[in-house]
């Protein structure tokens, strides 16, 4: 049986030990896959180090293959993007191509943290200013939204009281709240933070409330049989059970906030990546706008990645019977 199997794998009928050493790299790979075929020649050959070396080579070959397999599609995707971009740039003299933009980007990132007065600062300062607004607005929204989500999820009366209001306000573009913010806070910066607050509060309220409502009835029955206090229920049952839902809300909120901050800053001005885009448009510096688009995308990607890591670290495996 092992002999038959070996024949089906190896193209050589009954390879002599000498012949085996000159097998091509593909044959090495084919041999290393099935266990029986791989162990057979190793037992027959006295030169064990040579076999081990061959196995290592096959292993690296496999790893390299897997790497190519995983990298090829995204590389092709970005390649397609660059090709389309070049075609569009060729047709429109106003739009810079990838090469010019790359050169400009190198120029900009040589010193991203310069300061020439309030309206001329490096892209790094602009990104940091935007991130600061997002984190303040988001932090305030979390402070209000998560506890609100908890009580809405826990008490049916509050759920029926707040749900219509949330349903009405949630679809409103957060930018519609910007004038209210300007009016109340009498300043561009707090108004932008207010806009971020509004747009990031909904996902946190809704996801936390849904999480609380979906806490398995079994856990609540345990709480009832043990007669736990409302505080103990909140800390030992609700909070850990809701955490994954809450973190999903946080992720959605941060994603939305990062979308909205660009638009908000275009309207409010000051320092920030959104304002930077608008400023470069006024300077007709399209290269910088394209660079800003990539920077915004990259920062958003990093935020998303960090929050997914955080969420998976705090998600408990559901225990099944």
């Amino acid at each position, binding site marked *: 049986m092992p002999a038959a199997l070996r024949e089906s794998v190896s193209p050589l009928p009954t390879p002599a030990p000498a012949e085996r050493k000159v097998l091509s790299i593909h044959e090495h790979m084919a041999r290393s896959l099935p266990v029986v075929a791989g162990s057979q020649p190793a037992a027959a050959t006295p030169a064990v180090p040579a076999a081990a070396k061959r196995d290592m080579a096959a292993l690296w070959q496999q790893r390299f293959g897997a790497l190519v397999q995983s990298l090829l599609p995204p590389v092709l995707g970005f390649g397609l993007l660059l090709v389309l971009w070049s075609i569009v740039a060729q047709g429109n003299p106003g739009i810079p191509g990838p090469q010019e933009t790359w050169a400009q980007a190198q120029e900009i990132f040589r010193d991203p943290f310069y300061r020439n007065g309030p309206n001329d600062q490096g892209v790094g300062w602009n990104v940091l200013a935007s991130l600061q607004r997002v984190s303040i607005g988001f932090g305030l929204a979390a402070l209000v939204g998560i506890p609100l989500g908890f009580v809405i999820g826990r008490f049916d009366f509050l759920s029926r009281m707040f749900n219509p209001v949330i349903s009405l306000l949630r679809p409103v573009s957060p930018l519609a709240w910007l004038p209210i913010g300007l009016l109340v806070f009498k300043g561009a910066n707090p108004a932008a933070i207010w806009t971020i607050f509004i747009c990031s509060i909904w996902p946190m309220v809704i996801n936390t409330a849904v999480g609380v409502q979906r806490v398995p009835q*079994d*856990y609540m029955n345990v709480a009832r*049989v043990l007669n736990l206090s409302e505080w*103990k229920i909140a800390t*030992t*049952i609700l909070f850990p059970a809701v955490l994954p839902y809450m973190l999903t809300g946080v992720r959605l909120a941060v994603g939305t906030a990062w979308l909205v901050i660009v638009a908000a800053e275009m309207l409010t001005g000051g320092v920030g990546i959104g304002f930077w885009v608008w400023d470069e448009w006024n300077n007709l510096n399209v290269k910088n706008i394209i660079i800003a688009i990539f920077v915004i995308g990259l920062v958003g990607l990093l935020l998303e990645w960090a929050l997914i890591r955080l969420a998976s670290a705090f998600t408990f495996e559901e*225990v099944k019977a």
Partner: protein
Amino acid sequence: MTPNTPNIPATPQGKYIEIQQVAQSFKTAKGLFQALQGINLEIAQGEFVSLIGHSGCGKSTLLNLIAGLTSPSEGTLLCANREIKGPGPQRAVVFQNHSLLPWLTCWANVHLAVERVFGGRERKAQLAARTDAALALVGLTHAAHKRPGEISGGMKQRVGIARALSMEPQVLLMDEPFGALDALTRAKLQDELLEIVARTRSTVVMVTHDVDEAVLLSDKIVMMTNGPAATIGEVLPVPLARPRNRVALAEDAQYQACRKAVIDFLYTRQAHVEKVA
């Protein structure tokens, strides 16, 4: 007749838990669903009672009523001459799917119950000792610091039992506690339960659909008719002497007779379950 001791209420041996004319109905989309009807049952202190019947006959509904997790549409339930108004640690429940909190260790799951019941009266060291003792009782001292996700189904169920027993409940209510386990683990846990109950002299009500389990463990088997509007069809006393041994009982005539009576009830007289469902 018997003189009452001051701290034990006047409960004649025959009735510790009393269920009188209990009915339970649920509102559904199709209207009112009558789950239980005309349930009358008395359970003595220290008695082991099994509820058996086909699925959907309301066994778990009845157990939830005794636990106080739900209240009946009609009738009254009494425990030690007091009406059962809600769930509480004096009637501990072992849930069908163990219901351990996955983010707490086995020890912390048991400790949660111990802390709740004895936290007001005892010091921390005593509470910890109680938790250790409960885990030792089910033979899980070695798994105390593991999370439920890291142990087997049988071990999880044992932690569930340890949690219930750690509260020193007056009544132990079990909803198909061994239903999800393989036959060997089930037998082992049944033997452990027999031992523990003999030691603690607890009053136990257990829902099951396993005939052998019911006969082996119970003093009394309550057989329920098929739903809707299920009720108690027959109550079978199991007069087998304790301690019981499953191997010795396998050929015991009385055991066989009890087993036959339950099978006869379930599969001859209440066999129309397929038509209903």
